[in-house]
């Protein structure tokens, strides 16, 4: 049994629960992505154990399911840290100096883009455009959009999220 320490994924792997989620969506045309989103919502990632279950429900091979999961940036193979900061590094944010902003923030946290802090509190990921291009630089903290970021504002947002 996989243990999961993510509050967004407060639920431990539960085969029955996974089977229910898959069954709820399996009848939809093109059900794969809706199923994967729902599983990740529940478990914080797409657990390896779910793949053969999806394959059986949708009459696909396990390789096909794995191929879909691994194609899309959104799907995780393991849960993220307790909090997730997604930093936009597309052109509009670049034009407002997101490069330096990100370097400074990551230096302070002592991690690289895509990594989680040692205490498991925060995962920082790159994202390419949030559609907040006129209030750049932008980011998402635990799904909440934040714009017009300065080093101080970003620090405050990270601190507040970790304390919450």
């Amino acid at each position: 049994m996989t243990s999961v320490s993510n509050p967004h994924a407060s639920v431990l792997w539960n085969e029955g629960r996974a089977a229910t989620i898959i069954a709820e969506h399996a009848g939809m045309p093109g059900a794969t992505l809706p199923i994967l989103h729902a599983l990740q919502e529940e478990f914080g990632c797409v657990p390896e154990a779910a793949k053969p279950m999806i394959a059986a429900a949708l009459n696909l091979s396990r390789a096909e399911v794995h191929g879909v999961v691994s194609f899309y940036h959104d799907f995780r193979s393991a849960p993220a840290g307790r909090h997730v900061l997604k930093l936009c590094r597309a052109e509009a944010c670049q034009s407002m100096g997101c490069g330096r902003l990100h370097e400074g923030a990551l230096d302070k946290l002592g991690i690289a883009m895509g990594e989680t802090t040692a205490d498991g509190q925060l995962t920082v990921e790159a994202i390419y455009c949030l559609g907040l291009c006129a209030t750049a630089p932008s980011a998402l903290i635990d799904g909440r959009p934040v714009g017009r970021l300065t080093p101080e504002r970003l620090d405050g947002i990270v601190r507040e999220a970790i304390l919450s």
Partner: protein
Amino acid sequence: MTGTVRIFVPKDMAAIAVGADEVAGAIIGAAVKAGRDVKLVRNGSRGLFWLEPMIEVETAEGRVAYGPVAAEDIESLVASGLFDGDRSHRLCLGPTEDIAWLKSQTRLTFGRCGVVDPASLDDYRAHGGLEGLKRAIEIGPAEVIAEVTTSGLRGRGGAGFPTGIKWKTVADAKAEQKYIVCNADEGDSGTFADRMLMEGDPFCLIEGMAIAGIAVGATMGYVYCRSEYPHAIAATNEAIAVARRAGVIGASVLGSPHAFDMEVRVGAGAYVCGEETALLESLEGKRGMVRPKPPLPAHKGLFGKPTVINNLISLATVPVILARGGAFYRDFGMGRSRGTMPIQLAGNLKHGGLYETAFGITLGALVDEIGGGTASGRPVRAVQVGGPLGAYFPRALFDTPFDYEAFAARDGLVGHGGVVVFDDSVDMAHQARFAFEFCALESCGKCTPCRIGSTRGVEVIDRVIAGTAPTSNLTLVADLCETMKFGSLCALGGFTPYPVMSAIRHFPEDFDRPALPAAAE
């Protein structure tokens, strides 16, 4: 004078990103304290993002705007008579309709965005909503397609294909089931029109899709929206539920014999799914791999059935075309670019936001006059138009009019209408590198020029940046770009050369770099 006061605080994701929710909370708190009866409306954004959060108070003389408002400002705003629309506060912008940046626009597609309550079908109707759909039912499929053809509407995703011709092809295809697919996978940096419309006027999209369904005989529609837009997805789902309950869509569209239903499907962070055939694969539950064409989606699209796949802005423009006539829409614009374009001004700009205007406005007017120059106060150096696959334009090309053909003639593209401005601190060699890097990251892997070419491109540009044989390496980049442009299956690999080559062509000084001292091995 203590009747109910209507106050508008945008629920647009960008407004929330700069504090709109906190402002809304503060207004409610202040209203309770002052004993005033306040009705808070969470509207979409008017698109003046440097003024967000921009709030509006309804008065007998129309709406009065204030912005940019922070939660801390509410106390002083209320003290100076916010609830009565008093105009003495320093944040007061005067009557919304008189704001020059709004007044100079031609809002056809975005006429209601920021004005109406996006969750209210009554409000939608009161502002001219459903007139287009009613007329479509009245005149029937053939006439609807004729109106759209007359309007000259072209695909707003960037390809610029005439919408009327696409619809006609699907209408002529014989099949038991046809589909309408809305491409809301707005991944281009510098674009946010789809997001704003879904959040601010989602009924307009629903109406446009229902009209498309009637025109071609499709009974089911899918909106494929990127996962980065949770607010847009929620607002559209809410509106679909309302529209279904009210009989706007469902078994009988507005009581007519036409059936049409729709749902939102969520992407999963793959940029290439904005390419129409990759999007269809993704909707079918597969990897977002590009399909070779032919067959065209119009003949064999979603689940192998004839499918209209249109950009969200194209579909959301159809209601106004039907309501006011194809000729009305066609009379705006220039050359073969008819009507209006919701242009998105973004990046390092003083006045960034959504500016809908007729085709033909010059790039220079957009950047210097409408956009007000850079936010940083430094000189403008480069402008990328059309997203990450669009060319970088220098000031020397600022006379280019916003028009599909004029941009193509200068090796650029209008794309989805995003304009990203950079000041003189930009390093164009790094921007060229990023174009390759992004292509490598997002390539679906189906064709070699895109999959391998992008990675090799990063490596060669790195050598140029390091000052290693820049001349021969730049020749290699040009050669690689030729291969990608003509050998790639879709626009991702095919258009990545635009930002790369435009950076090299217009900003050669950034690629002429001294050799870095070799690192000790």
